[in-house]
């Protein structure tokens, strides 16, 4: 019944099947929307946050989706600025994932603040010294860039493309996309960085604080670097999931291998920097403030050394090596292990840089603060996931997202 909208030559499941799938995920999304409205109308008392845990699950989710959404800017940068042409086969999807991640991040922020109707004060009364101001501006601007990058793909829909203006617009936008991508990369660099800066500048929090370059603490660069490193992992992961769900090969192996290789290099360089940063922090920064490293890791079983080892070794060093090594990179099992570990690693890093900071006491007579999110927090955090699934399902169904789809699946049909 919706065949007129489906890209030419593409094979899609029947509409009822599609609709049922959307409904199931939609129900989860509605649950999240309900929780979202509870938070808006009743206030943040719906959460389990408290004055010690002012940043909690949402901010972690926010940082995590932005980190994994970093695939969009980095792939865009490689494609449009460094002219890595193979990436044109995955750039559309990277942009869509980025779009989902960034729109989710903005939504989460709108729920997270105590006075959503005054949220625009962050722009209007901007304090240029705050990392969060930098985040807000760059995030919204970069979201605009992602929207711009997404528009041509949207206009390639079979029906939209029939409108001459849209067809021309899509064509012309492709023409100047490098400029947008460059601006996007610039903005992205700063907001990924300033998200890292958010933690690093908190000099009242020895667990978070880092020294740095000019006004930017080292976490600024580590966050940008890790987003660029792990973002492509997430793009590949979602592509793979989409391939599994649709039962079709959508991107050629050489493209996947290329992105995985780039990611491997990025991860490896990042993790070396991260290890150096951690050692410097543990042996110089924190002790200079009177803290032994064990203070941060030995009070309770949740925030133990395991978290540090998991983040850096298991989910950093290992995926780096697996993706750098040609044989493990091109072996799909080891590649997927690396990619999944990588995505977990960057999410864990963001968790540590939000929640563990809040948990650690600073005053010698203060206590650890542990927290378990309320269902409203969980529901609103699941909401973006449901929204992302629906968004991908719809875009995949109606837009020519994967340029290689036809070629790959024709071959299959012919065989």
């Amino acid at each position, binding site marked *: 019944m919706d065949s007129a909208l489906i890209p030419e030559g593409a094979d899609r499941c029947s509409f009822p099947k599609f609709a049922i799938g959307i409904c199931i995920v939609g129900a989860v999304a509605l649950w999240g929307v309900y929780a979202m409205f509870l938070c808006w109308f009743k206030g943040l008392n719906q959460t389990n946050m408290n*004055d010690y845990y*002012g940043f909690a699950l949402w901010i972690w989710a926010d940082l995590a989706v932005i980190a994994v959404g970093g695939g969009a800017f980095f792939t865009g940068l490689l494609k449009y600025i460094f002219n890595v042409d193979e990436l044109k086969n995955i750039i559309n999807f990277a942009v869509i994932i980025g779009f989902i991640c960034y729109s989710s991040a903005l939504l989460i922020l709108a729920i*997270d603040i*105590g006075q959503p109707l005054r949220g625009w004060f962050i722009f209007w009364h901007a304090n240029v*010294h*705050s990392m969060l101001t930098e985040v807000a501006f760059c995030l919204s601007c970069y979201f605009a860039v992602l929207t711009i990058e997404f528009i041509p793909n949207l206009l390639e829909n079979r029906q939209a493309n029939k409108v001459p203006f849209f067809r021309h617009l899509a064509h012309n936008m492709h023409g100047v996309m490098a400029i947008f991508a460059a601006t996007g990369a610039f903005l992205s660099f700063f907001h990924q960085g300033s998200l890292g800066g958010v933690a690093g500048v*908190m000099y009242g929090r020895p667990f978070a604080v880092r020294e740095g370059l000019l006004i930017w603490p080292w976490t600024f660069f580590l966050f940008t670097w890790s987003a660029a490193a792990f973002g492509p992992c997430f793009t590949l992961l979602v592509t793979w999931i989409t391939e599994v769900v649709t039962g079709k090969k959508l991107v050629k192996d050489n493209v996947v291998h290329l992105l995985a290789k780039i990611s491997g290099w990025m991860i490896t360089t990042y993790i070396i920097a991260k290890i150096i940063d951690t050692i410097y922090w543990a042996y110089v920064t924190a002790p200079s403030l*009177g803290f032994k490293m064990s203070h941060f890791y030995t009070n309770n079983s949740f925030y133990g050394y395991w978290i540090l080892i998991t983040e850096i070794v298991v989910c950093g060093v290992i995926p780096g090596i697996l993706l750098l090594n040609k044989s493990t990179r091109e072996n799909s099992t080891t590649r997927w292990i690396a990619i999944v570990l990588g995505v977990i690693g960057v999410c864990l890093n963001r968790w540590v840089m939000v929640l563990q900071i809040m948990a650690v006491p600073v*005053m010698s007579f203060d206590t650890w603060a542990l927290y378990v999110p309320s269902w409203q927090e969980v529901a609103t955090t699941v909401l973006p996931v449901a929204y992302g699934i629906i968004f991908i399902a719809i875009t995949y169904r109606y837009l020519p997202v994967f340029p290689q789809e036809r070629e790959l699946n024709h071959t299959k049909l012919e065989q």
Partner: protein
Amino acid sequence: MIQDKKEHKFGMVIDLDKCTGCGSCMVSCMSENNIPFKEDESRKKDSITWMRVYKLTNGKSFPDIQIAYLPRPCQHCSGKGGHGHSPCVSVCPATATDYGYDTGIVSQIYTRCFGCRYCMGACPYHARYFNWWDPEWPAGQEKYLSPNVSPRMRGVVEKCSLCYHRYQAARDKAYYEGRDDIEESEYQTACTTACPAGAIVFGDLNDPSHMVHQIVKPDPHPDPMNKYVVDKSRNPKVFRLLERLGTNTKIYYLSEREWVRKAGDNYLDGEWDKVKNHHGSSSK
């Protein structure tokens, strides 16, 4: 607009040997500043207490245990090097909290705050509180609210203002009387005047005639051991909370008891014995 010619730096010194933990300062603050209350205030991590009294122990067992109480208002940090970049002020994205260079007071504008809580994360003293709930008073009780401090709405951060409205009132009075400046006694915070033990001394740290200056004797030179630390006390019995972080708080504490002074900051093993006698030795 009334402008003081002089630059003040209001601060406090709290004598922890006099403090009895009675709670007068907490309630005086609540009453002065229209602080709301709710059914369950036993969860201290979401209980708005601009002035909170912590109980400290020396960690020993019976019968050698000792306890002390430490009242903790907002510490009104002047930030690294004393330049006004307090941990919270520097991070607030909407300029809703600001450092008063003429008073040293860290302000909070409730109607501008949009509740991102970054300042709370940045504050190691947990001096900042979020209005998780709409403030509600039992019927009639809103009649005792003071118009000098506006009640806060849900979803914003609040904290101790060193009773800034009292400073304004004192300044207005001085202006009407044609005086340039206010007397020490004219501007005292609600916790200071309430303390039945007289443990809190409040005044202008920049004014040598003020008692707080005489007790604290702030060192005009940066600490040679940490360039970020300024206004360190030259009184060996006086310390600040988490001084090593370079927050440069303006709330000083006084105690004869070594273990109490040690509890004010974090020290690596053996470090305290090296630094304990260095208090105030940075400048003669």
